[in-house]
């Protein structure tokens, strides 16, 4: 090869070849599209919700009925027919789903993850993990009628007072629904714990339980915590199953009273479904309340994601 040829080759600029530029543009377009869509949804949600609240509506100069921020966030009655828009009963309903499903899914999910990552043979694990993913793929509407048809009657045999629509079955079914998520993400976090740490434990005469509970779980804590947040965000946003199982009566129940779970209530998502399926007039107050609930729901899940990121960032280098 002559020196000139070499010089030519070295200055070719492969980076700027047409197909390189084209593919770069395409991927850029994909990235932009998803960001634009997200931003558009947030803007829509915010502007429509702003028309619902007295304060922001007057600032925007929007006509029509409005609800004050205080009434919305502290009101204990949700009854659109009488114009009572207190979101607390809905928030309490959602909270009950979160608490109940957490009680079921967090211990079972972590237990499953520990079994898969520390106890199961590689062969068994390779069968169980896909099975979990199938569980995660069951349509939520199926979970909903499963709750109504099987869980509620089963609970009824022990708790005769239970209502047909009740929070217990909704929370249980959402709990079952999110177990795979907790298990799968926690298992990933535990598998990422270096074997050197396990060997250190076993080398000191630790039992399998000592190593799982005392070494692996603490080292994977941030990943396990992330799985909780993600799964509970899913529980908060879960709609179909809770709408079917919990009913559509917006009662203001006390989430920390176990007997309250025997009654039906309406979580935020179920209320939104009710608004959408009822005859709401476009631009009316009920229509706008949909966005107010939506924004509140979004704010809650956003907050949870932020917390999750902060925790992940804080505890990331657990074993590095």
């Amino acid at each position, binding site marked *: 090869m002559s020196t000139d040829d070499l010089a030519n080759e070295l200055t070719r600029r492969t980076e700027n070849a047409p197909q390189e530029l084209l593919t770069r543009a395409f991927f850029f377009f994909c990235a932009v599209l998803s960001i634009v869509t997200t931003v558009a949804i947030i803007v829509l949600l915010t502007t429509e919700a702003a028309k619902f609240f007295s304060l922001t509506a007057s600032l925007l100069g929007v006509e029509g009925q409005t609800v004050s921020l205080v009434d919305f966030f502290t009101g204990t009655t949700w009854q659109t027919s009488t114009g009572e828009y207190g979101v607390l009963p809905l928030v309490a309903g959602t909270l009950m789903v979160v608490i109940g499903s957490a009680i079921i899914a967090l211990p079972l999910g972590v237990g499953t993850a520990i079994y898969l990552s520390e106890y199961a043979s590689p062969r068994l694990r390779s069968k169980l993990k896909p099975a979990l993913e199938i569980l995660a793929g069951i349509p939520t509407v199926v979970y909903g009628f499963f709750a109504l048809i099987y869980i509620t009657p089963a609970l009824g045999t022990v708790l005769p007072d239970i209502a047909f629509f009740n929070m217990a079955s909704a929370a249980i079914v959402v709990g079952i629904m999110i177990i795979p998520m907790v298990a799968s993400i926690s298992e990933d976090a535990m598998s990422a714990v270096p074997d050197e*740490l396990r060997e250190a*434990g*076993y*080398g000191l005469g630790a039992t399998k339980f*000592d190593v799982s509970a005392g070494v692996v779980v*603490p080292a994977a804590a941030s990943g396990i915590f992330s799985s909780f947040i993600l799964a509970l965000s899913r529980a908060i946003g879960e709609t179909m199953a809770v709408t079917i199982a919990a009913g559509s009566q917006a009662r203001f129940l006390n989430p920390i009273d176990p007997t309250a779970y025997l009654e039906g209530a309406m979580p935020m998502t179920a209320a939104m479904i009710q608004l959408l399926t009822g005859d709401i007039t476009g631009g009316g107050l009920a229509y706008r309340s949909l966005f107010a609930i939506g924004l509140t729901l979004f704010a809650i899940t956003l907050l949870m994601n932020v917390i999750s990121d902060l925790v992940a960032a804080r505890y990331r280098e657990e074993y590095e």
Partner: protein
Amino acid sequence: MSNEEPTTEARTSAPDRSSATTSVDAGEETSDRAAEPDRTIVEARNIDVWYDEDQALRDVSMEVPEKKVTAMIGPSGCGKSTFLRCINRMNDLVDAARVEGELLLGSKNVYDADVDPIALRRRVGIVFQKPNPFPKSIYDNVAYGLEIQDVEGGHDAIVERSLERAALWEEVEDRLEESGLELSGGQQQRLCIARAIATDPEVLLMDEPASALDPIATNQIEDLIEDLAEEYTVIIVTHNMQQAARISDKTAVFLTGGELVEFDDTRQVFESPQSQRVEDYITGKFG
């Protein structure tokens, strides 16, 4: 087995015994050995190890003397780590591994059906090639073995003594609550040594404990190993032949195929090896 009293006594009596052995070593070797024969603490009898169909160790027999440093050298893949992991049955954790033969700790074959590998590992400590402190505080790292063995009473004194023995106490006494991961590589390795000796094992296994460290940290570890041999039986795998020559009393040379080709006093092995293959290996490495 892990009751504290007898081991504490053994510990206090150790210095006299070790000073005796040190002076013996200073003398002319063969005659003194006859005067005070070494007690064997670990004895391998015809050990074969397979990983599935591949044989990693072939008919290995050797007697490891108590409270001495025994080095194991040999080319990569010749089975040194495998042999080390036979002694505390860490091989049990590898599904593919199969061990045949007898391995005696004291007078008990550790592969007997009634031996609990967990109890065994509490008597045979191990330090790995790469420092692997737990993501816990320095204190908790050292106390871990005591915790899992439910050692009664406060652990403070044992933690302090172990860190002192591992020549790390002065560097960490003011920061015991900091994470073990914040230490330098050499400090981490000494922390792992402190962790391994906190429960006062009979035997300390070390698999290339200094190979991930710089020369200064390596020196510190080597000095430490020589000190530890006053109280513990140390079995160390090393790739560094000068290191083996410097710190060990006995040397075992494994060669490719998993054979133990030579096992003798370190000076004997390095100065006049019996086997031509061992001589080639040693001189080849020295250039």
